[in-house]
């Protein structure tokens, strides 16, 4: 009997999982879209109000093309935003390379000898193997201008489980303003319910004080 018990306990410990309580989103609203499931992520580079700014769409398309677009854009502007990279020493960069060898792939230490900018270029030039994802990814990039000076960039990133026609994409881009959504079988829910998110930030700030 004892052996039986031990064997059973062992089997439990072997097949059981340490965290088996999934998190579920709650907030669900009605929606007419036909797609089974997709998520939209809303990203703003500068946290400023968009009301008085002029939008200008600078890119719409698939994620793989977006990365090419972003790479060109970044290389053009690279010398403007490398404060921390230029202060980092060559040795430190070698350490980074060691710890990220797998991720950086073909980047060699030699190419990092001129510390700073080269490191930045190496990171940006690194291709991202989005092709292996099973889902379809779409991106729309909009720059917001004030007096012809760009102030912030907004990126709407859609991950879908099936290919979306252009009309539907347009509809999604136009109907979502400043939040991320998780759509699910004709219904829609925020990625996290707003209440949860604020409570999360509140508790987090409290624990810091």
């Amino acid at each position, binding site marked *: 009997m004892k052996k039986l018990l031990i*064997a059973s306990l062992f089997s439990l410990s072997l097949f059981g999982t340490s965290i088996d309580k999934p998190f579920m989103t709650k907030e669900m609203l009605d929606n007419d879209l036909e797609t089974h499931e997709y998520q939209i992520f809303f990203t703003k580079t500068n946290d400023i109000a968009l009301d008085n700014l002029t939008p200008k769409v600078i890119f719409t398309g698939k994620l793989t093309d977006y990365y090419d677009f972003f790479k060109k854009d970044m290389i053009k502007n690279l010398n403007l935003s490398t404060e921390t990279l230029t202060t*980092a020493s060559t040795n430190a960069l070698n350490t980074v390379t060691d710890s990220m060898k797998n*991720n950086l792939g073909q980047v060699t230490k030699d190419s990092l000898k001129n510390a700073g900018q080269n490191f930045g270029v190496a990171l940006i030039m690194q291709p991202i193997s989005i092709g292996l994802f099973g889902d379809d990814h779409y991106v729309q990039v909009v720059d917001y201008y004030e007096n012809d000076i760009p102030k912030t*960039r907004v990126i709407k990133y859609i991950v879908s489980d099936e290919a979306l026609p252009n009309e539907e994409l347009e509809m999604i881009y136009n109907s979502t303003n400043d939040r991320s959504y998780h759509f699910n079988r004709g219904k829609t829910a925020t990625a*996290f319910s707003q209440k949860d*998110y604020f409570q999360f930030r509140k508790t987090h700030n409290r624990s810091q004080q």
Partner: protein
Amino acid sequence: MRIFLFSTIMILFFAGCSQKISDKVQNYSLYEIPKTDTTKSTVENLNDNGTIFKVSTSANGKVEKKGAMLLVITTMQKTVEETKRKGYRYFQVISPTTISNASGFPINTVADLTTFLVPQSDNVPEGYNGMINAIETHSAIDLPLTIFGTSKFEVVVRIVEEPKYYDIVWDTNKY
């Protein structure tokens, strides 16, 4: 011999039971996520002045797929704390490559990153399996095959002092 046979049967029986238990769905809100005792976060500076650093969170054993969100949230909370402690406001994820903001990955909030890496769903639509498999294909979260391994999520971030309008950065005041 008979004991051996019984043990084998009981193993199979209880294995079935344990599978059954984990099928139970329980609702948790973001601020009530159950943490295990073995969950721990570490910070490691990768350069002299600490503007590039690595934050990793690990939990003993194999974490259930959906529970992996705990690792992501804990890691990003720790990263925000560390950035604030160093007196900066903005940072950028540079590793793993699939979520590298420096390469153009557009997500910069905890809620969105978690939903992206660990998709959640109330019911199970057709596309759900594809979405949940994203955890494996994104290869950002390290989940072992058996409970003898360690589940791990690790990011390398760099601090950005003054981001330009096109820089995708995390803001420690709004994440």
